[in-house]
């Protein structure tokens, strides 16, 4: 079956959700990934939205933003932003999704600005809840378009902390997060239009876990701003099943998010 790159990204994102997990659902593709996971392998997962919302069923209509009226209908709890991010601060949210404009080999994300902090070349919108999700969720899943200027050796500004950087006190990775005082977490996976990366917790470095059908390790390297390290079991990404595609297309029949 034919599918679009974004449909494959939604499938890869949904596969990160384990049944029964509490998932902090981000904008755009994660809205669909949550619906797909609910209707396939993770019927008992629960979605948490930063507007202040918890629901355990997908919305009945396609969502353009998490604040759309259909997302509030049938919610388990409509409350405040502090209450739901507070749950994450307390360590109760297993998985969080975010996107970014730039990412580096240690999973640090930039959504604030390109260029110099005081005289930016491009001012991006900023964190929203992204930096909170990156700081506080037990596992972080990142979804981004794969372009060389976006996957950089080092980002211009760390909006959302990943695994930091090696410095005189020690290596990047989980050790860096502990050094700066982050309570847990870190990037588990980076899903792009070309590939899926996982991370080495000891060094914090991204590992190429799989390349999407039609792509290759060489192409991924060309579009990535750091020398790739491969996961020991690096392979081609498992394509979407017909069932996964059927559910996605039911949720997004006009391809608003997936065309």
């Amino acid at each position, binding site marked *: 079956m034919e599918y679009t790159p974004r449909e494959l990204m939604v499938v890869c994102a949904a596969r990160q959700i384990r049944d029964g997990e509490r998932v902090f659902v981000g904008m755009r593709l994660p809205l669909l990934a949550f619906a797909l996971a609910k209707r396939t392998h993770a019927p008992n997962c629960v979605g948490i939205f930063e*507007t202040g919302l918890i629901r355990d069923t997908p919305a009945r209509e396609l969502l353009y933003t998490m604040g759309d009226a259909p997302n509030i209908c049938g919610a388990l709890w409509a409350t405040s932003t502090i209450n739901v991010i507070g749950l994450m601060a307390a360590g109760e949210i297993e998985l969080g999704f975010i996107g970014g404009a730039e990412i580096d080999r240690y999973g640090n994300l930039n959504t604030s600005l390109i260029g110099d902090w005081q005289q930016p070349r491009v*001012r991006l919108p900023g964190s929203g809840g992204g930096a909170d999700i990156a700081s506080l969720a037990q596992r972080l899943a990142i979804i981004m378009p794969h372009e060389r200027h976006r996957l950089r050796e080092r980002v211009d500004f760390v909006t959302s*902390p990943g695994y930091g950087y090696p410095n005189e006190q020690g290596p990047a990775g989980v050790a860096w997060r502990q050094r700066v005082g982050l309570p847990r977490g870190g990037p588990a996976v980076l899903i792009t239009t070309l590939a899926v990366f996982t991370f080495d917790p000891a060094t914090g470095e991204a590992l190429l876990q799989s390349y999407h059908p039609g792509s290759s390790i060489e192409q991924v390297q060309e579009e990535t701003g750091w020398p790739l390290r491969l996961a020991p079991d690096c392979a081609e990404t498992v394509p979407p099943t017909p069932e996964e595609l059927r559910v996605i297309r039911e949720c997004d029949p006009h391809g608003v998010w997936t065309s």
Partner: protein
Amino acid sequence: MSKLLSMTEAIRRYVPDGAAVALGLALEPCIPFAAGHEIIRQGRRDLTLIGPISDILFDQLIGAGCVAKIQAAWVGNVSEGLGHCYRRATEQAQPRPIVTEDHSNFTIGLALRAASLGAPYIPTRSLLGSDLARKNSTFLHASSPFDGSPLLLVPALQPDVTILHVQRSDEDGNAHLWGSLGICQEAMLAARQVIIVAEEIVSREVITSDPNRVIGPSYKVCAVVHEPWGAHPSAVQGYYDRDHQFYHEYHTRTRTAEGFQQWLDEWVLGLKTRQEYIAKLGSARLGALSVKEHRYAAPVDYGY
């Protein structure tokens, strides 16, 4: 005592030049666009805008030259990403330079919560290790006095005025708000004064029939404005859904400063009141956004 005022009068009295104004606090829904447009028409200057994400209203106020400073987590267009006016102001100081103190959604909420509690700050572990934590000079890094662990101290932030768009209010400012609440309640409790903008004005009895749904104490409310469709193009649960197309059009038309000025002339400066704005939207567009199927909550019993 009735606090009902026209939008013109409410903004004239309670949003002076230089004020720190919190608005757009429910994130994507219930953004007080009508209030923002009146601020632009009255030519306010040197405002500080406080909010979590801002879905194009901050961009409009910045483009119109009303803003000196931003204390927010995100300034852009949720449908499209970038905010063109925010970019021009930050990158090129057009139409004037602005200062941004970057927050996350959690830290801006904590800053308001701290003010609402009379606390000087609230500590968090969010943002530790990020440039966000380092570059916002209002934050302090500290160690927990209990166990020595690293903390980020988020100082209290008190808006001069918080503007909330709600479904319904009585004339005294006892207001019902439902749906996801974002940081509305924190911003109301933190503010020196509050302007309530309501889709409907109802009797005190309607409000007091369900006191759990009230967003905050009406003694903080300085003005109540009756402004149906006052949050368009954002959504108001039970009244209308988000007008996604409007956000796309805004994004396309405001790529250049000239394009923004034309958009502003057409949708803000060329219209004297919200009634003219609603007439310009037209009944077909309003009809498409209106509630198609009412979904009432079950009544609750406050009896004894």
